[in-house]
């Protein structure tokens, strides 16, 4: 479903936290190419998450993806690098 616009910034922060918790996303604060690098890596992680849940794999934080992130869930990550 389309996004309710006023929530967009909060949604990005929420998504970032979700991807950190469950998809091993790391925001490296000292990268010289920080903004673009983070955006690309976040898009990759979004794609990974969308693929896992059978959503359309776009790499974009659309409403369907965001709503899936907000579903109550288990705290174990979905990626194999969890330890």
């Amino acid at each position, binding site marked *: 479903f389309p996004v309710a616009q006023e929530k967009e910034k909060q949604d990005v922060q929420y998504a970032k936290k979700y991807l950190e918790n469950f998809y091993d996303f790391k925001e490296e604060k000292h990268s010289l190419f920080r903004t673009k690098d983070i955006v690309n890596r976040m898009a990759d992680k979004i794609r990974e998450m969308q693929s896992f849940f059978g959503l359309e794999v776009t790499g974009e934080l659309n409403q369907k993806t965001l709503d899936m992130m907000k579903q109550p869930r288990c705290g174990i990550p979905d990626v194999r690098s*969890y330890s």
Partner: protein
Amino acid sequence: AFPHSPTWKKEEVTYRILNYTPDMLQADVEEAIARAFQLWSSVTPLRFTRIHGGQADIMISFAAGFHGDFYSFDGPGGTLAHAYSPGSGIGGDAHFDEDENWTKFTTNSGYNLFLVAAHELGHSLGLSHSNVFGALMYPIYMATDTRNYQLHQDDINGIQALYGPPKESAAPPTKAFPPQEPTDMVPAEEPTQMSPREEPTEMTPSKPPQRPDDCDPHLTFDAITTLRGETLFFKDSYVWRKSPYFSEIEHDTIFSFWPSLIAGFDAAYEVDKRDRVLFFKDDQYWAVSGYSIDSGFPKPIQNLGFPTSVRKIDAAVHDQSTKRTYFFVGNKYWSFNENTQSMERGYPRKIAADYHGISHPIDAAFQKNGYFYFFHGSTQFEVDIKRKKLIRTMKSNSWFNC
């Protein structure tokens, strides 16, 4: 499985319940945990024994926020619980977020402990998450009728890949438990699991009706609503989704959007300012925001001000300009003030008195660009909202590019 596929290297595994949630009776917590273990023991050689002191293989506890490991809980909602893969120390342990409302029922106002425990104990035994929708090890909580709950074949395949089948027979049993508890705490007995659905994983007795063709001239709808600029048309379990951004009509199912809602809506409408859609079925209604169902639902339609003689709604439509919602029942309609959350005086009124030329009962209705669209059978009526004047009639599927 987890990295390196850790498993218990023995068939007798012990567990201990360290503390209890105040949300449930202790006996109900113990029963939920025991049933969860039984689910897994029924399909593997594993046997689970409860101990009451000392160090068990699987230590089960309830805690809120930070609780001594690196994975703090997050308050109500979000993360519900977590568990560790088999191993010594914290290995195998399961933690449940005490900030959740735990329940033995299947309800929209809490989380069923048996379901969550069964999932977490899957981790305690070495399973990671499954991406198979409907599997127990799917990471998202799915409110499901837990009477006669059966593991998904994917769960069985996963756990038997780690431990093999049970010793007594090669095939897993078809029933894990006798019926144990009621399904809900609210007065209405409504199943929370939708049927039919696209990926059947449980027994449903009858085959759902086939999706009608978009351009079937006799196409009728149960309910129609707008949602964030899109329009959703409902018939049985099927949804036609029309977006202003795409030319094609998308085909979905109710289950794909709201798994715990029951197919066969009577009515639906959107209050766009509150980003809410209300669904009606028989004498109950639900409020959703996007994919999320608001807690505390379903509620009886009498909460909106209907007399007890009204047992279902035919159709509903919200007028954004006046903040009024109109409910249609038989040959009459009510006006509901969304600001005061109360029915307006002077209603119900006869549909024919205010909307000339509109056939009733009205099956479905929605509002768009200053017009109401009323549906009666395979006919659609376009009505100017302000003047309450019939502009034209069309086929019900005029929106589907036929």
